């Protein structure tokens, strides 16, 4: 307002077109409220710090007893002072990776189907169903895997071993047995991962610019051409983030592994049978309560390794997904 200039002193009038800085007056109540908010946010930090601290302190005796062998020993037998975390950690990672390898193609197909191929009236229903499947407790999936799938997958596993057994990964650790394997566990874990990857990548794909899609079709492109040249390149980041979240979920999976896997805690490359690799979560669940002090300590240390891996994977995944601006749960 130029009419407001006369009462003001001269120096203000010279830079009157520069925006003035308005500083909000913070009352005492405001300051208190802000402190309360900050204090409640600090609880999450405290939780992380306390968890890490407890795990380190309680895991230290095993670290001192095992030393560097903790990472190099290939056997987990705490009673004989063999604290090789490798079979457990490699097993956890293998389950997560195989599960994601199974889940990714079918999840992407499902996301594309819901977004581009399904009839329009069906789409909200399919979206709701996928979201609902993500909330079904994993012990129910684990129970189903234990009762039904572990038997169903024997025939395919046997066929794979018979025909592709020359690949070290595609063998059974105990010849002739194909149930309760890392492979079976991974299939069930994949069931819990599919809804996660599907729902995230579907939401990213929805954000692909619709006019570019229509332009691709209008120029005579096929639907597949539109998907590969517009939708998929646009949503690549979100898909990668979803896949990483799936890996995080697979790493932390507990009940499915406990119910389906049968492990001998040995470091073997074969995945299609029982008595092979172990899993950190399974080992803790089964042997933590009645283990000796040193075994407990070793299990805590293994848990710490799992915790750190999962946190890193999740943080990276969230960072990638957040950049695409998609809401996640």
């Amino acid at each position, binding site marked *: 307002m130029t009419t407001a200039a006369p009462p003001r002193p001269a120096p203000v009038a010279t830079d009157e077109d520069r925006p003035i800085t308005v500083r*909000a007056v913070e009352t005492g109540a405001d300051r208190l*409220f*802000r402190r*309360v908010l900050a204090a409640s*946010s600090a*609880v*999450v*930090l405290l939780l*992380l710090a*306390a*968890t890490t601290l*407890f*795990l380190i302190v309680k895991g230290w005796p095993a670290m001192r007893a095992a030393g560097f062998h903790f990472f190099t020993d290939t056997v987990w037998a705490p009673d004989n002072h063999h604290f090789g975390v490798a079979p457990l950690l490699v097993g956890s990672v293998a389950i997560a990776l195989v599960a994601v390898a199974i889940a990714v*193609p079918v*999840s992407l*197909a*499902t996301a*594309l*189907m*819901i977004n581009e191929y399904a009839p329009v009236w069906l789409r909200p229903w399919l979206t*709701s169903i996928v979201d609902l*499947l993500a*909330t*079904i*407790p994993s*012990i*129910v999936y684990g*129970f*189903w895997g234990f009762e039904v799938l572990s038997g169903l997958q024997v*025939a395919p596993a*046997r*066929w794979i071993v*018979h025909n592709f057994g020359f690949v070290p990964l595609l063998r059974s650790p105990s010849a002739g047995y194909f149930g309760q394997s890392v492979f079976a566990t991974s299939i069930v874990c994949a069931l819990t991962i599919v809804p996660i990857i*599907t729902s995230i990548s579907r939401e990213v794909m929805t954000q692909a610019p619709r006019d570019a899609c229509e332009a691709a*079709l209008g*120029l*005579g492109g*096929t*639907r597949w*051409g539109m*998907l590969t040249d517009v939708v998929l390149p646009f949503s690549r980041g979100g898909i990668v983030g979803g896949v990483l979240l799936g890996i995080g*979920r697979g790493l*932390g999976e*507990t*009940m499915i592994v406990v119910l389906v896997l049968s492990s001998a805690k040995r470091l073997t490359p074969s995945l299609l049978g029982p008595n092979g690799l172990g899993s*950190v*979560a399974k080992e803790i*669940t089964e042997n933590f309560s009645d283990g000796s002090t040193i075994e407990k300590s070793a*299990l805590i240390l293994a*848990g710490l390794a*799992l*915790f750190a891996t*999962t*946190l890193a994977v*999740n943080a990276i995944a*969230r*960072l990638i997904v*957040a950049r695409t601006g998609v809401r*996640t*749960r």
Partner: protein
Amino acid sequence: MRQITPVQAPATVHGSTTSAGRFPNTGGAHSFERPSRPSRIVPASLWELGGSALAALALVWVIFSVSGNSGRSALFGLFVSWFLTFLTVYGVLCWRLHGVLAMKDRLATVAIWSGALVALAPLVAVILFVVFQGAPVVFARFPHFLYADMSKVGGESPVTAVGVGPAIVGTVEQVGLAALFTVPLGVLTATYLVDSRGLFSRVVGSVVDAMTGAPAIIAAVFVYLLWVAPLKHSGKSGFAAALALSVMMLPVVTRASQEVIAVVPSSLREAALALGAPRWRVILRVVLPTARAGLSTAVILGVARIAGETAPVLFAAGGSVYYNWNPFSGQQDNLPLRIFELINQGSANITREAWGVSFVLVVLVLGLFVLARIAGRSRAGGRARPWQRRRATGVRA
């Protein structure tokens, strides 16, 4: 000159349609009237699809009967070989008839539909299995199953006295306590994360992100070390389980509320501030009431997620075959924990009862999910605006 524009415009449209309309199935003069759809289903394409499938089946069948494979594992091999052969036959057919672009499109369509089927079929199968195995168990002794306790179960005797009463009480109390702890904390943290942009807030934000997917078993071990082990015999209780569940639930609730609060229009916030309201009043009276519907959805989904967690309650609740209404003393039962214990008992008729408990748990989670959807839907009705709500309640009263 004025007449050229309306005359020429349709001509160019026709021209461009002709040059772009080289989709094999939509040829013919009538394709000028409606937009050409590359994916329209016509009888010819169905014949090609079905013919290729049959041809591939015949080929693979011959090969398998000559090589003499049989049994269930051969059946799986037959299926895989059939699908691959079918893709090859169909691909070659489409390529010869319609060109390479159409071939890619058709093959991708087949792959995407079958991939989606492979993904959704087992998931739906799990739910159907739970319903068909569990519902008979629950409804065979209908109200009894829901309120009886497990104290008469044992050995190989036929199961007639199984009930999930203690487990339902435990789940409701533990999840309720966990929600009581985490919902206020989570919502306050989320408000802070949305409101301030400092270093501290960014660190808290990424910690929340990372903790959202933390392994459940770690929460169990943490609460065991923190609470259960130091207290020795009185350590395992519903309260300890609620603590373990809170560790899992806090990041989930925070994360979800943060997203809901972030979409509150900043114009509302700025209007309130411009009218001279202090910050805390703006948050409590404008921001949070506006986000109310979304917040309730977030909280209910968090509860649904937590109600199914097994590992955190395994070390903390302890399990109990009797009713224990007091979460602060004595071991308590829990639905997922009861499923796990029943599976571990090993005998077949007790495992069958576990399907009944699974059914109860799935129905509970499903109910919460539907409730969350209903709570979220009221957002679209505009009821969430505080000033309208004030007036509406006044009219009703």
